[in-house]
C-alpha cells in the first residue's frame, strides 16, 4: 500500500516537474531578494512574459505536429512594421492597424504552410527561408527607420482591465485559455495531436494532414503578429532589430512547458504558459538579485538546461512507473482487497 502511495506521489511529482521548478525558482529568488515576492513584481513578470508567451502558444501548435516555425521573429517585425506604417501614413485607427497586423501575420503563416504542405519543404528549412526573407521585407518597408506607433496604442498597452489587470496579461491569459480549449475540446485539437503522434497513421485514419498543418502554421503566424503588437504597444516603436532571436525564446517556452519536439505531447495550460513565465521570471530574478551581467546568461542557460534534463528524466521515470503498474496488477488487486 505504502509503495503504491509513494509511486503515485512520485508519478504526480514527475508529471508536474515544470510547476515544481517554477515554484523552486520563485522561492529561491524571493529569499535572495524579498521584494521579489511583491504582487507587483509578479504582475510585471506576467506582463513582460505576455508577448513571448503568446508567440509560444502559436509555436506549441506547430511543435505538437512535430514541426517548427523559425520565422516567428521576422513575422513579428514585418506585421508590426506594416501595421505601424498603415497607422502612420494612412492615419488609420488602432483597430484597423491591429487588423492589418493580424492579417499580415496570418498571410506569413499561410506562406509557411504553402511551402510545407504544397512545395513539400521540411518545416525547418521552409521557415528558415521565410525568416530571412521576412526580415528583408520588413527592412524594405521600414527603410531601416524606427516606426513610431500612435500614443493611443501606447496608452492601450499600459491600460488595465477594470483598472486592475494590465491588458497584455488579459490578452495572454485569454489567448492561452482559448488555445487550450481548442486543443482539448475540438476535433481540430485532437487531429493536431494525432498528426503529431503519427502523421502516417493519421492519414490512414482519414485525417487531412495538409489541412491540419496549414491550420497550425496560420495559427502560429497569427500569434506571432499578436505577440508583436502586444510588445510594441508597450514600447511605442518598432525598432529595426525587433523580433530578432525571439523564435528561440518561444521554442524554449514551449519545450520548458513540456512540449516534445517530436510532436504529439504538450499543452498550453499550464505547459507553455508556465514555460514563458518561467523564462521571464529567471530574467527578472537575476535583475532583482543584481547578479553580474556576465554571469546572467550562464545562470539562465543552466536553469533552462536543468528543466530540459528534468523533463527527459521525467519521461524515463514515468515509463518505468507505468511498466511496473502493468506487472503489479495482481498486487494491486490484493491491495484493493485489503482496503
Amino acid at each position, binding site marked *: 500500500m505504502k509503495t503504491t502511495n509513494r509511486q503515485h506521489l512520485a508519478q504526480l511529482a514527475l508529471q508536474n516537474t515544470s510547476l515544481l521548478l517554477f515554484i523552486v525558482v520563485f522561492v529561491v529568488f524571493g529569499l535572495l531578494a524579498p521584494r521579489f515576492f511583491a504582487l507587483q513584481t509578479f504582475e510585471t513578470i506576467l506582463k513582460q512574459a505576455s508577448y513571448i508567451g503568446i508567440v509560444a502558444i502559436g509555436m506549441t501548435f506547430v511543435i505538437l505536429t512535430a514541426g517548427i516555425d523559425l520565422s516567428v521573429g521576422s513575422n513579428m517585425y514585418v506585421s508590426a512594421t*506594416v501595421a505601424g506604417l498603415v497607422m502612420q501614413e494612412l492615419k488609420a485607427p488602432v483597430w484597423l492597424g491591429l487588423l492589418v497586423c493580424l492579417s499580415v501575420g496570418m498571410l506569413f503563416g499561410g506562406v509557411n504552410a504553402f511551402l510545407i504542405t504544397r512545395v513539400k519543404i521540411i518545416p525547418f528549412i521552409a521557415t528558415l527561408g521565410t525568416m530571412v526573407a521576412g526580415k528583408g521585407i520588413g527592412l524594405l518597408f521600414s527603410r531601416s527607420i524606427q516606426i513610431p506607433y500612435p500614443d493611443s496604442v501606447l496608452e492601450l498597452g499600459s491600460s488595465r482591465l477594470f483598472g486592475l489587470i494590465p491588458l497584455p496579461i488579459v490578452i495572454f491569459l485569454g489567448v492561452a485559455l482559448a488555445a487550450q480549449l481548442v486543443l482539448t475540446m475540438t476535433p481540430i485539437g485532437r487531429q493536431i495531436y494525432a498528426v503529431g503522434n503519427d502523421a502516417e497513421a493519421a492519414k490512414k485514419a482519414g485525417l487531412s494532414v495538409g489541412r491540419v498543418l496549414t491550420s497550425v502554421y496560420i495559427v502560429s503566424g497569427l500569434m506571432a503578429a499578436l505577440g508583436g503588437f502586444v510588445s510594441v504597444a508597450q514600447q511605442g516603436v518598432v525598432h529595426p532589430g525587433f523580433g530578432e532571436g525571439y523564435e528561440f525564446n518561444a521554442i524554449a517556452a514551449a519545450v520548458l512547458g513540456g512540449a516534445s519536439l517530436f510532436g504529439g505531447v504538450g499543452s498550453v495550460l499550464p505547459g507553455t504558459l508556465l514555460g514563458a513565465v518561467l523564462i521571464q521570471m529567471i530574467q527578472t530574478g537575476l535583475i532583482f538579485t543584481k547578479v553580474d551581467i556576465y554571469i546572467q546568461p550562464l545562470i539562465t542557460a543552466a536553469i533552462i538546461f536543468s528543466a530540459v534534463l528534468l523533463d527527459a528524466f521525467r519521461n524515463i521515470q514515468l515509463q518505468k512507473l507505468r511498466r511496473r503498474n502493468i506487472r503489479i496488477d495482481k498486487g494491486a488487486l490484493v491491495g484493493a482487497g485489503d482496503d
Partner: protein
Amino acid sequence: MKRLVTVLAIVTALGLLLAACAAPVAAPSAAPAAADQSAATTGDQKTICFAYQDLETEFWVAGHKAIVETLNELGVNVIERNANEDANKQLEQVKDCIAQGVDGIIIIPQDGESAVTIVGEANKAGIPIGVFNRPPANDSNPTLVIVANNEVITQQATDYMAEEAKKLGRKVTPLIMVGDLGDPNAVGRRQGFYNTIEANPDLFNEVIEVPTKWDGATALANLEAAMQANPEVDFLFTSSDFMYPQIRSVLEPLGKWKKIGEEGHVILGGLDGDSRACQLMRDGYVDATGVQDLFYEADTIMQAMLDAIAAGETTPEKWMDDPGFALTQANWEEKAMDMWGCKLFAESGESLERTFTAQ
C-alpha cells in the same frame, strides 16, 4: 491544381497589398542606384568606391549622408555599393570596384572579421582603403581607420550628469542600460560610465546594471524589473539613444518621467546623438548625450584618403580616433547643430528652441 492556383492568387494579391503599404515610405536621401555614377575617372577627378553594409539605423543613414556629401563637396566621383548586411556580397562589390580601377575605397563593413578580408583584397590590388566607424578585428592588413572613442565620449556625458547630481547635495543611485556585451562599442560605453562612477565614490550608491542585448523588448522588461527592485534610482544612462521610448514607458507610470527642474526628475543621459535624443534634450527630459561626431569622422577619413592618393601610397595605415563630444544642457546653444541627430531634426522642420525652463 485549381486550389493551388487559388492559393497563389491570394498570396500574390496580399503581397501586392503589402507592397502598396510600403510605398508611402520615403527612400533615403541618397539612394544607392541614383548616386551610382560612372566609374570612369575623367582628368584629375578622383573616383572613390563607397561600400557600406546597410543603412539599418538612423545613425548609418546619417553616416552615409555625411560621407557622400563630403565627397561631393570635394568634387570626387563616387561609386556606391550597398551589401544589404551580407559580408560576402560586400567582398564581391569591393572586388568589382577594384576591377573598375577606382582610386580609393571606403567601407562600412558588416563586422570586424570581414573588414580584415576586404582590406586584404584592396592591399593586394594596391588601392588605398579606409574603414569607417567599425574597425577591423585585427591590424594584420594596413588600412586607414576612423572610429569613435566610445569610452571617452560616454565619460564626457556622464561627467556632466555627475556634476548635475552633485547639485542635489546627496548620494544618487545610478543605473546603466548596457548593450550587447559582445559588441566592443557597448563595452567601451560601459567602461566610460564606470570611469565617472569611480571618480566620484562619495556621490554614488551601488550601480544597477540592466542588460539590454540592444533589444527594445529586453530593455523594457529588464528596466521595469530593475526600477521595481530599486525604486530609488535617480541617475540613468542608456548605452544607446534608441532606448528612450522604453525608458519613457517605464518611468512615466512611476511618475519619474519629469523635465529638468521638476520634482522627481531622473538625471538622464545616453549616447549616439540621434534625433530623438535631440528632441528630448530640447524638451528638457535629457540632461546630456554623448555624440559620435559623424561630420568630423567623414571629413577626417576623406582627407586621409585623398592625402594617401596624392602621395601615391597604396597601403596607407593610420588609426584615427573620433573624440566626439557631449551635448549638454549647458552647451546646447553652441553645440546643438554639431550633433548629427539635431541636424536631421532641424532638417525635418523642427525648431531647436528649448521648450522648458529649468527651475
